[in-house]
């Protein structure tokens, strides 16, 4: 398989790919935690043989929403010496998760996207995607620093936490994330596993 498997997901089910580890659950708002808990409570139930036959369902995103989430994933984990969120197709992963999310949680995420554009409009006179890279970074910095924001920014702060959690999980479990960033080359055959080679650890 050469591309990310986003198209094979029955999107109603993809919520379950959220992880506590990727989400930093202890500090998250309740609605994000709810997504995480639902994900943990649900079973893996589609056999490998049947998964590929699952229907491709429609995106929850408009084109503009899709492009904004795609942009956000790249801003959170950008291309450096390894590829970033965009090449890892994090947007498709998030789309799939939202498709499976309970309605209220999905709506809060989409509301957050709308909030982001409105806040960007108020600050910069442009949607988030149309703002300059410096403006985008400035707004995200505000949202990523809880001590800086006002109660009016709460929607945006929570949205950023959800967006970041989903980006982390989607990126580090992608082919690009695993093979490039984690240098986990996928070789599954080893002659043996070496243990600790440091005498000081045995004291």
């Amino acid at each position, binding site marked *: 398989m050469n591309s990310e498997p986003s198209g094979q997901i029955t999107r109603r089910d*993809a919520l379950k790919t959220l992880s506590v580890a*990727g989400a930093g659950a202890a500090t998250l708002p309740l609605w994000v935690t709810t997504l995480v808990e639902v994900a943990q409570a649900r079973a893996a139930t*589609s056999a490998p043989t049947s998964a590929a036959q699952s229907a491709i369902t429609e995106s929850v995103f408009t084109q503009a929403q899709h492009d904004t989430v795609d942009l956000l994933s790249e801003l959170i984990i950008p291309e450096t010496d390894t590829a970033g969120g965009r090449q890892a197709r994090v947007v498709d992963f998030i789309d799939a998760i939202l498709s499976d999310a309970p309605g209220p949680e999905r709506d809060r995420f989409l509301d957050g996207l709308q909030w982001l554009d409105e806040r960007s409009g108020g600050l910069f006179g442009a949607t988030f995607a149309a703002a300059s890279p410096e403006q985008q970074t400035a707004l995200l910095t505000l949202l990523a620093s809880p001590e800086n924001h006002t109660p009016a920014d709460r929607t945006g702060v929570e949205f950023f936490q959800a967006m970041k959690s989903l980006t982390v999980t989607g990126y580090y479990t992608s082919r690009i994330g695993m093979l490039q960033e984690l240098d986990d080359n996928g070789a599954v055959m*080893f002659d043996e596993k*070496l243990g600790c080679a440091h005498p000081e650890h045995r004291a």
Partner: protein
Amino acid sequence: MAAQDQQYDVVIVGSGATGGWAAKQLTEAGLTVAVLEAGRKLDPEVDYTEHKRPFDMPFRGRRLGTEARQARQPVQSLCYQCDEYTNHLFVDDTEHPYTTPADRPFHWIRGKHVGGRSIMWARQTYRLSDYDLKAASHDGFGVDWPLDYATLAPYYDIVERYIGVSGQAEGLPQLPDGQFLPPMALTCGEEILKTAIRQEFGRTLTIGRCAILTEDLNGRPKCHYCGPCSRGCRTGSYYSSVSSSLPAAEATGRLTLIPNAVASHIEVDDAGKCRSVYYVDRITRRQREVFGKAVVLCAATLESTRIMLNSTSDRYPTGIANSSGVLGHYLMDHVTGGGASGVLPVLKGVPDTRGNRPNGIYIPRFRNLEDRQPNFLRGYGYQGGARLVKWGHAGSIAGFGATFKQEVRETRPWQISLGGFGEHLPRYENFCELDKNRVDAWGIPILHISAAYGENEQKMVDDMADAAEEMLRAAGAEDIAVRRAISIPGLAIHEVGTARMGDDPTTSVLNGFEQAHDIDNLFVMDGSGYASSACQNPTITFMALATRACEYLVEEFRASRL
């Protein structure tokens, strides 16, 4: 040829760890054997997913599935091994219902296919000792087993030599050494913990003893360390009945394996002895009968007892082998939930040395051996390990962008974790019985299971938590999170008892050869016979007991005493 036309020397119900083993031993001794297996044959090329990576899977391998499938596995999905890679190896709960009291939940994790749970098991193999087999003599609670360690030891030897168990000899009386293949290696963090707890507490940490080959053995290649054994193993490098014992049984030409055969009950003859096993064909739903001169139940704890309880007749109105009235009682499952996790700052920057090692560490029981704990009887062992976390810490790192990405790389923590597995005291009031008002998908009455942990287990979990925290501190761990939420029975998947062994036919179901006191040609060779749970992972003991029982069965068969 219709199955009912066939008469076998022995009919075995179940093809898992012990059913496969009994089939091997009995066919090699010259007996003809039919093995009834409730499920299908797996196809390794389709059903084994050990070489899939997260990005090969539609949901990245996490706990997920369609809404429709989710509704069909509400219990199985609670198992840590049941995920996107493996859900097809676990039963459909809607086809396999059971009931519990509302305030006494029991999570019953099952896999029905050729090989049973020996496909998905965690492969940890620890011998019992006389601290376990003679525990009642030690502290006065419950009953001793009808055999001691010296009696059982040669049978452990036989099993270990054939299936292959890697491990490190430690010379501990509470955890006897076995016939070990070379041990796997400890990671840096595990070495640090090992040194610290030996120095501070005089306790032992050893690499997990596991039924995974570290050298080629009996035609099976050694492990290639791909990691996720519980998804199946195409090279057969860990013990499952499919990789090891069933092929040996088939090679004798005396094995008839009947998949899709859902056993419902045993039929007795006029003399009150087992005559045949009735089963429902899973595909056609037709009832069939297969005849044997002896019957060996290896359907797993609870399922074997269910078959016996459902084998009623004028002679045996409360079920077969139940003159004592204890059939179904003394259900046990290891208690878990106490433990701790932390990070080892001293290892900052040290690369991962664990890789995909499919094994953890073990800290053998240290309570109530020579000492006497004030708060609880018996003891527990820990399983766990130390490894480098590659990205799971990312959610706790602030910010975004290139600096965030770099910080995730540079702050990978060495996580260390311990979780206890404790003994569950045998109590009459923890039991199963037939719920005759309900049937499963094949029309067979289901079980009502009523079990709970008590004060002893709760106090043990508290001690697991405290002692784990203390040991992690001794190793220099920081950010320690202590866990002390007691588990739900069933989830350790070490369920044992309900047809316990004993010398007294009025208080036990089986004798020390796992033969029913009431019926000479009925044997139960899975975990049902446990008289007390001990705290060690039980499968190797099931197999050692079965080896001794099969040896006895063959002698009795040849002497025409069955």
